[in-house]
């Protein structure tokens, strides 16, 4: 467990796992990500901002569901 790295929301808003409703999720549990891999979007102030993993590893879990409200610093997903 000590190897778990969390990807946090840098600012508050609504978290989206897909680039648009018709597209598949950016990433899934089990996917390998790099620091620059886009893992979702956060919408705030009528802007959509891409959220990158910031760390490299394999996605263990998502802690926020698609279109869930998030606060700044909230854990979005866990990477190991």
């Amino acid at each position, binding site marked *: 467990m000590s190897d778990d790295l969390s990807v946090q929301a*840098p*600012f*508050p*808003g609504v978290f989206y796992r897909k680039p648009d409703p018709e597209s598949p999720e950016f990433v899934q549990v089990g996917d390998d990500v790099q620091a620059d891999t886009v893992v979702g979007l956060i*919408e*705030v*102030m*009528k802007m959509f901002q891409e959220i990158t993993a910031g760390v490299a590893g394999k996605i263990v879990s998502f802690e926020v569901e698609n279109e869930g409200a998030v606060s*700044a*610093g909230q854990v979005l997903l866990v990477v190991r």
Partner: protein
Amino acid sequence: MALRIQQPGLMTTVQDEGRSDGYRVGMPPAGAMDKFAYRIANGLVGNPDGLAVLEATYLGPQVEFTEDTVFAVTGADMPATLNGEPLDAWASHTARAGDVLAFGFLKSGARAYVAVAGGIDVKPVLGSRSTYTLCGMGGFEGRPLVAGDLLSVGSGVDGTPGRRMDRDLVPAVSGAVELRVVVGLASYRVEPDSLAAFFETDWSVTPDANRVGYRYRGGSVEWVPRTQPRGAGSDPANVVDIGYPVGSIQIPGGSEPIALLNDAVTGGGYATIGTIISADLSVVGQSKTGDVTRFVPVSLEGALAARRDAAVRLERARASFSS
């Protein structure tokens, strides 16, 4: 002297007191959303009132100083660092050429201010250096900053490093916000019971909350039945066009109130059921998506007293500066 923007943050703009002369002809003021934090930031670095600063919303920028200077960070709790070393907010500091100011995740509040000795030296437009993004005017090229921007800083202010405001005077910010409201001018459009309920509702700030306005969710209002007046729209929230004060609250459709703020349209055809008092606009500017907000009715006399109190608080904060 200049500031080089390495990373812009989410929404960072140049702001000052705003343009005050154009409201009557439809020009919104723009300007810093939290005037207290803005004015203290200028004061800490030794700037005269009214110089331009950076306003960063939710996510701070990464900024390189091209020459030695003095700067201060105030506003939201967004832990600042200089070359990676933690830095006190509400205090002025010396930066050396090549030093980099950066910010950590937002802890509370919404907007941080960065003042630099001499102020951000963009060309004033209609009497202000504030950015009004909807019209692409003022500030730096009329837009939020992007990576690579190089912002000139004014000369003529030596700067006062090591100046700090009394920590006890830092405004308390929490996720539970109370905003005082003078009821009217078009509150007669809402059923009295419903208007009373409006002030008993926990409203939450939606993601639709920016310099133009804040949209809230949490309840709805019932309109007084009426025959649509000539010149008004068909929505029961419509009236014949009126002026919108900064801070006025309208409720298109009857749900999701919108508080109009510094960059909002100055008039239109929605009933304004109340106006957030000027003394509390800085509180709005530090509230963020997800915060719970209560609107509290206050008399005009109460609003004026609050405005005097806010002026006293600002003077007390300035008098507390120590080095």
